[in-house]
Structures are given as structure tokens and as C-alpha cells.
């Protein structure tokens, strides 16, 4: 097991390296494009262009340029945005990160509880009305785009019913936990529900399918013949075996969301997280920030993949490579 973990994380590092090289090549080595102009942003003076050329070693060989870029980004952390002059990239990301974290962790708690409950209730009551009902709600939640749902939530809470039912809902934006926990919670409530809706739907449907499969397996029949209660069979045998795929799915989803995949939800609700940062920098073609966001997101996706693989081996003993 130990060597498995070591090997898995070693390959994760390799993947991150490859991503960094690929991003670098796309931004700085695409033929026919002047890298200096791209870094400096749209309207840059000749002086800025010369400065960029020197800093990034644009006349030097490719590998040196790569190393310089990585140096600026990670070690010196003095890569600055050329659209918002002087704003350094890394602090922008580190400031935005807790906001995304708040959004994603809260939504994750909600979607896990709702999704798992929904899946278990549907599977335990196959054939009765509640089963297709839950599945229908699930697919409705999956089909609705996050930005539409978010805007509808805003419409209802900010304008239509703002004076009546939803008077307590604060305007869009973010309040940090340390400033005011209540406000933090209220500001994040509807973003949480919006983000959680999509994933709860998927998880309920996936878990139900996995559970129904597991319940038809021979070992469930053995468990029943052992005289175990139906509840124990469902939770300790069927669910335990089905959770393996849910946990894997969760790891990947969570990793991607931490890295900034909750883009649209953040924009709709005015939360200045990493997703919002990526969105704005893409609109402005703010290259350094884009690159920072890409590396940040990639890191978490790769990390999540590695953790999920290790977790999978822990949960399913058959997979362990000795």
C-alpha cells in the first residue's frame, strides 16, 4: 500500500510538470505570436514591452524561458498582472481561494447529504412512487444550468419577493467568516443551494443505480441468509460497496470545484472567488493571471485524482497493489 501511494504521488508530480510545460508552450511558444504583447496585455507601451522581453528572457532558449516563467510564478511570486498594473498574481489567487473554499465546502456538505439520502431512499423503495419521484427531481436538477438557476434564485430573492418572503436575503457579494459568521452564512446560502442542486441530482441517481446493482449481488443473498436485518444489509453491505464509486466521483468533483470550476455560480452571485478571477482574466486576456489560475486549478485536479486513487485502494481491498 505504501509503495502504491508513493508511486501515485510521483506520477501526480509528473502530470503537474507536464501541464506547466503545456501551458507555457501555449502562451509563450505559439508561432507567429509576440509573447511580449500577450503578457503585457492589450494596450501596452513600448517601454513595457521591452521590460517584459527582458524579464521573461524572450530572446533566450525555450527551456530557460520556461524556467524563468516558473521562477516568477512560484518562487519569487512576483508575477504581476499587466492589466491591473502592479497587482501581483499570486496574492490575487490566495485572496480569492478562501471564498471559493467556503462556497464549495458548504455546497459539498449539502449535496452529499441530500444526494446520498435521495439515492438510498430511492433504492430501498424500488417500485414504489418515491423512487421515480426522486429520480425525476434528480434529473431535473442535473438538467438545469447553474447560471440559469442562480439567476432565477436572484430574481426571486433579490427582486420579486425581496420585500416579502426573502427580505432577509442580503445583496449579492461575500462577507468573510471572520467579519460576521451570520452574514457569511446568509450570503452563501443561495449560492450553496444552487451549486449543490446539480451535484445532488447526479449523486442521487448514481448511488441509486449502484445500490440497485449491489442489492442483486450474491453476497447480499448470503447476508440475508445469515439472518441480518434488512437495514444492516442495506447500509453495511450494499451501501459500503456502492460508496466506493461515489467517493471517487466526489473526490474528482471537489477537486475541480476548488480549482475554480464553480465559475458561473460565483459570477452570478457576485462572489470574488477563484472562478470569478478566472472569468474576469479570461475576458480581459490577462495572461499572467490566466496562467496562475490554470496552474492553481490544475494542481487541485491532479491532487484530487491522486487522493481519489489512494482512497479507492483503501475502500476496495481488491484494488490494492501490494
Amino acid at each position, binding site marked *: 500500500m505504501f509503495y502504491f501511494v508513493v508511486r501515485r504521488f510521483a506520477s501526480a508530480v509528473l502530470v503537474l510538470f507536464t501541464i506547466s510545460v503545456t501551458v507555457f508552450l501555449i502562451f509563450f511558444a505559439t508561432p507567429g505570436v509576440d509573447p511580449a504583447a500577450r503578457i503585457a496585455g492589450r494596450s501596452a507601451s513600448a517601454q513595457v514591452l521591452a521590460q517584459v522581453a527582458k524579464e521573461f528572457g524572450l530572446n533566450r532558449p525555450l527551456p530557460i524561458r520556461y524556467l524563468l516563467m516558473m521562477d516568477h510564478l512560484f518562487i519569487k511570486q512576483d508575477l504581476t498582472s499587466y492589466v491591473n498594473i502592479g497587482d501581483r498574481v499570486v496574492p490575487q489567487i490566495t485572496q480569492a481561494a478562501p471564498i471559493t473554499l467556503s462556497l464549495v465546502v458548504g455546497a459539498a456538505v449539502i449535496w452529499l447529504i441530500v444526494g446520498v439520502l435521495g439515492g438510498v431512499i430511492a433504492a430501498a423503495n424500488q*417500485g414504489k412512487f418515491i423512487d421515480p419521484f426522486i429520480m425525476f427531481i434528480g434529473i431535473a436538477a442535473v438538467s438545469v444550468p447553474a447560471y440559469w438557476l442562480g439567476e432565477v434564485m436572484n430574481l426571486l430573492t433579490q427582486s420579486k419577493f425581496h420585500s416579502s418572503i426573502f427580505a432577509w436575503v442580503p445583496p449579492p457579494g461575500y462577507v468573510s467568516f471572520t467579519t460576521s459568521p451570520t452574514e457569511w452564512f446568509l450570503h452563501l446560502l443561495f449560492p450553496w443551494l444552487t451549486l449543490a442542486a446539480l451535484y445532488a441530482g447526479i449523486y442521487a441517481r448514481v448511488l441509486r443505480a449502484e445500490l440497485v446493482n449491489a442489492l442483486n*449481488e*450474491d*453476497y447480499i*443473498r*448470503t*447476508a*440475508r*441468509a*445469515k*439472518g*441480518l*436485518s*434488512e437495514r444492516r444489509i442495506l447500509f453495511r*453491505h450494499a451501501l*459500503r*460497496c456502492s460508496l*466506493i464509486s461515489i467517493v471517487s466521483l466526489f473526490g474528482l468533483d471537489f477537486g475541480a470545484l476548488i480549482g475554480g470550476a464553480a465559475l458561473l455560480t460565483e459570477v452570478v452571485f457576485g462572489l470574488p472567488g477563484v472562478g470569478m478571477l478566472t472569468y474576469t482574466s479570461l475576458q480581459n486576456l490577462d495572461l499572467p493571471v490566466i496562467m496562475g489560475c490554470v496552474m492553481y486549478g490544475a494542481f487541485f485536479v491532479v491532487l484530487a485524482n491522486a487522493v481519489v486513487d489512494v482512497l479507492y485502494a483503501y*475502500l*476496495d*481491498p*481488491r484494488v490494492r497493489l501490494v
Partner: protein
Amino acid sequence: MLRVRDLAVSFATRQGVLRAVDGLSFDVGRKEIVGIVGESGSGKSVAIYSMLGLVREKNVTITGSVLFEDREILGLSDRELQPIRGGSIGMIFQDPMTALTPVYTVGWQLVEQIRQHLHLPKAAARQRAIELLGQVGIPDPKSRVDRYPHEFSGGMRQRVVIAMALSCNPRLLIADEPTTALDVTTQAQILDLMLKLQDTYDSSIVIITHDMGVIAEMAHRVVVMYAGRPVEIAPELDLVRRPRHPYTWGLLDAVPRLDAKNERLHTIRGNAVSPLDLPPGCAFAPRCDYVMDQCAQRPPLRGDADHVDACWLSDAQRVTIRQSVEQHS
């Protein structure tokens, strides 16, 4: 100990009513081994599963009476059946490769059953689990108890399943084709083990198989099933020496013999009948070499106290037929 009367299991399907078991009756006494033999699809497994409420399909209808130790267990709820399942009646299933939950160690699964019925503390239950593994012939049980099912071979897994079935000293052990998925040498070992344990634990056994060799090895009495119906019930020696039903003849003749000349193996002509379209009279009639007009009526199970069969042939006719068959073989 076990009295089954007129057990019938049918499924409501789109193509009509599927009678998987149709009027099965037999008894199992104390320390007795009863074998149920028949082709695939003859309803043997379904009959047994339905007795313990293990048939979970929603479209099933189960009628009849199953008295276990003078208590009617057919129709009991899951909750009422829990102390019986695994406690008084232990079950061994056909495929050892999929019978155990893959994510728990065999010790954990053994302890789970022990604590469900015997209410021992964890340490004592674990001790008992190790003892049981030793009794069923698993080498080094102290360390193997913490291994996962996929770390055992098929034969070893079946031994674990047997250990689980016997863990709470059941009075009745039901084995559904316990050796079908295993190779012949392992089969012999497992059957020996079951006989030894039956002696130690004083339990009765119902063994389901399609292999007449297993029947000869193990059973005191035999129930032959075809198309969900019992066609012959007899003590094992009687069945082998004086079989009465043409299907039983077919089953016995089909067993390859070492002293036969280079002949083609005997087969029963035709294919197993589908339970969806059973003929109105005797179910075996379409495949029987001795079918008569009378067979259009379903023959009742009749005979002596000990040996009954469901066939219209008279004893005289049988003797003639078997003599001519023996002359030609």
C-alpha cells in the same frame, strides 16, 4: 424436523404464469441427509430459497406449508425469519467466488453472523471464528481470519461459507450445489468435510445437486425433481437399485461408467421443458421413451410408504423395460 407440503412457487410474467415449483412435498428427519436432484431449471433452488423468504421478486406467489420444528415458516416476515436464517438453518450457496462481501475480511463476516445470533462479546466471537476456520480446514486460521475473500481460492472460500453456515450450530443445513463450481478433488474434500461436520454438529442436511455422484456419496434419501414437480422420492439405495421413474432412469444411465465399452454416452432426448409451457399431463411425457395415452393425465405421486413416484407405468411394465435396457447396454 422439516416438513414440506405442497410447496408451489409461481411467478407472474408477461408471457403468463411461470410455475417454478409445483406441489413439492418431502420430509427431513433429524441427522438425515436429503438430496434434491434435477436438471438446471427444475426448480430445486427456487423451492429452497422460497422456504426461507430469499425469493425477493415482487411478482412471486408462494403457497403450501413448510413446518420447521413444528412451526410454519412460510409467510413469516423478514423480522420473524431473522433468528431462523443463519441461526437454526444455515445455508451454503453455489458460487463461492461471489458469496462473500468483498470489502470485509472473512473474520469480520464470521463475527457478524456469530454476534447476530449468539450475542457473544467481540473477543469471544473472534475466537470462535478462528476455531471454525480451523475446523473447516483453513490452514493458519489465526492470520487468515484477517484476510479478504479475494485472497482465498474457490475451495477455501467455500470452506469459509461452510464455516459461516455452521457458526451458530444450526439444526438444518441447506447446501445449494455446494461443489458445482469447484474441481473434482476439491469437491471430494468439501463433501467429506460436510459429512464430518454433520456428524459433529448433529445437524440435518438438504443438499441440492444435479450430480448423481454427489447423491450417492451423501444422501440418505433422494427427491428427484423435473419441471418443478417431484417425480420420485426414495431412500438412496432404493433409488439407485430400483429406480421407477423414466427420468430417474435417464439420470442414472447418463452417469458415465468405467466398465462400459466405447459407446456414446446415454442422454435423455430433447431439452428441459420451459416452465412457461408445461404440457397438460405428465411434464416428462415429451421426452419419455415409454409414453402412453394415459400420460396425458398428470400422474399422482404414489407408491409405498418409503418409495413414491409419479408415473403411470405399472411395476410389471417397469421390470420388462429395465431388463431389456440392461440387455442392450
